[in-house]
């Protein structure tokens, strides 16, 4: 019973990480149907910004998190205006190829700047260690991660449900043509949403270093997880991403704990079955 709760806790923390990494992609995919395989490259940017700032500049870990967010948002915003926006009407294949190209370039640039070794980050001592609650060992860092992800999730839901910017996003996701017809500047809304989503990925990347390590392969390895979350959760649905991320996080940790001989096999099998059952995702409407 006790290990089960521990697995549940670790899985939930991992799921929260996946939620941060994927929620932006879910919204931007739902809005423009733009298949952005470079999403995790933005997460990688955030992660390496944190590495640089803590190791060479000497900023404390917590102070680098907002900067990781900003850096990823800024880079993605520039790329969106320069490159991506020409491809919203292109085929899936062209979008995939363009963004895979960006992933390749980002991996090579990072390898050139930082080498291919596994990076680690020094987190402050009050975020290290763990304590026992009723026999369940909880890592402090994981609790911190869960807290941040929950704050982000609540802020996103409130932002999308209550603000006028959120209403514009919802309108554009639901029916882009109608939204344009009503005078909503969908392109501008999208550019902002894109930058925001990539920024969250950058934050997720920075938070991921302590938990899963960071090397140049990050952009590809987590891309698959992020795509699973997005496609299972359903495009454009924050609640769907949250549920799918928790499901994936818990089943991944549980699978590795209880049946390590199968590796990650179960996750992929579950994804394929879920997609066969509901190609639009669990919470997708289209």
């Amino acid at each position: 019973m006790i290990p089960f709760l521990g697995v549940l806790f670790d899985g939930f923390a991992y799921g929260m990480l996946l939620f941060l990494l994927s929620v932006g992609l879910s919204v931007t995919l739902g809005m423009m149907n733009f298949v952005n395989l470079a999403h995790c490259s933005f997460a990688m940017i955030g992660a390496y910004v944190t590495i640089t700032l803590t190791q060479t500049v000497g900023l404390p870990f917590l102070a680098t998190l907002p900067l990781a967010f900003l850096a990823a948002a800024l880079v993605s915003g520039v790329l969106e205006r320069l490159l991506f926006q020409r491809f919203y009407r292109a085929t899936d294949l062209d979008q995939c190829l363009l963004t895979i190209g960006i992933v390749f370039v980002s991996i090579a640039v990072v390898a050139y700047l930082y080498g291919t070794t596994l990076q680690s980050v020094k987190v402050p001592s009050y975020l290290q260690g763990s304590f026992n609650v009723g026999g369940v060992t909880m890592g402090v860092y994981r609790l911190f991660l869960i807290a941040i992800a929950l704050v982000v999730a609540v802020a996103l839901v409130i932002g999308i449900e209550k603000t006028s910017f959120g209403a514009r996003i919802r309108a554009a996701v639901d029916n882009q043509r109608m939204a344009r017809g009503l005078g909503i500047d969908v392109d501008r809304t999208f550019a902002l949403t894109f930058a925001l989503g990539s920024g969250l990925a950058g934050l997720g990347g920075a938070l991921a270093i302590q938990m899963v390590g960071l090397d140049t392969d990050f952009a590809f390895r987590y891309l698959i997880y992020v795509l699973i979350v997005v496609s299972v959760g359903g495009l454009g649905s924050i609640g769907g991403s949250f549920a799918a991320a928790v499901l994936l996080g818990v089943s991944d940790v549980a699978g590795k704990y209880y049946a390590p001989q199968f590796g990650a096999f179960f996750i992929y099998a579950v994804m394929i079955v879920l997609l066969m059952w509901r190609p639009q995702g669990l919470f997708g409407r289209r």
Partner: protein
Amino acid sequence: MTIAAPPYSLVAAFAERSRWRAIETVLWLCALLPFWLAPTHLQLASQIAITALFAISLDLILGYAGIVSMGHAAFFGLGAYTAGILSVKLGWGEPISGLLIAGLVAGIGGYLSSLVVCRFRHLALIMITLGIGVMLHEIANTSHGLTGGADGLQGIRTWKFLGVWSLDIYGYVAYSYALIVLFACFLVARRIVQSPFGLALKGIRENALRMPAIGAPSQSHLRKIYTIAAVMAGMAGAVLAQTTETVSLEVLSFQRSADVLVMLILGGTGRLYGGMIGAVIYMLARDHLSGLNPQYWYFWIGLLLIAVVTLLPNGILGGLARVRALNWIREMRLMPRRRAA
């Protein structure tokens, strides 16, 4: 009720489309050049021929049927492991029957996955092909007893080809074998895409809903071509396993699926030769550049991809075709002026 024979002009049109052109003979003769020009690089040449066959198999489903696959290496790996396991576990190293069995196994895998894959489009399709690919990779990784897991499958022995030629260190036999398999599969692929069936596939690519309305069943057509492509990919994998006498986990990797996609896009989709030319350029460039560091090699490939997608949407061959079309239009425009003069 009898169905009227197609009018003669239609038959003639198909015959004209499938005519063997002189440039094709030249290209295939060029494939023989390495025997004299680069006898020390025949191992690389045979790798290129194998990759070209793999690219052709992807072209059949991507270029002609419009199925975007992110996990085509699944069938390449299936073929490679089948040929390898035949030799290591069952002691059967006869290459040609091994090739056919590998193609058969990959074809069965292709047919089974086509039942799922062909029902989807867009993101769900990309995710399902990707998922099948990584799932097979994971199975091969964890079933250590059968596949050797991450250590790869060692100890493959390929018997003499036709009982006469055994593999040599320079790769004469390896390249000849790879080239013959490539040419045979190319002829089959060429016949397929120039048949009415191939034309129906192009119709499905352009509009999957309208084709059934004119009597071409989309789903079964897609399943057929997906299975055929899987057979060819499996054969490419088998040739790799037999000529290098080793199979590593890399044959099933996402990287391999992505690489072949890049080659095909670079050369141009939907023209068979596009995949081959892309494979030649890609493999030669990689051989020259990745000596420095494989990570930097991906920088150039990434940049190339971005450039091709933004500037040359139909690949190198598509770009050439457009230049030719532009010249033709220019000539058409000039004609009245000439007449006036």
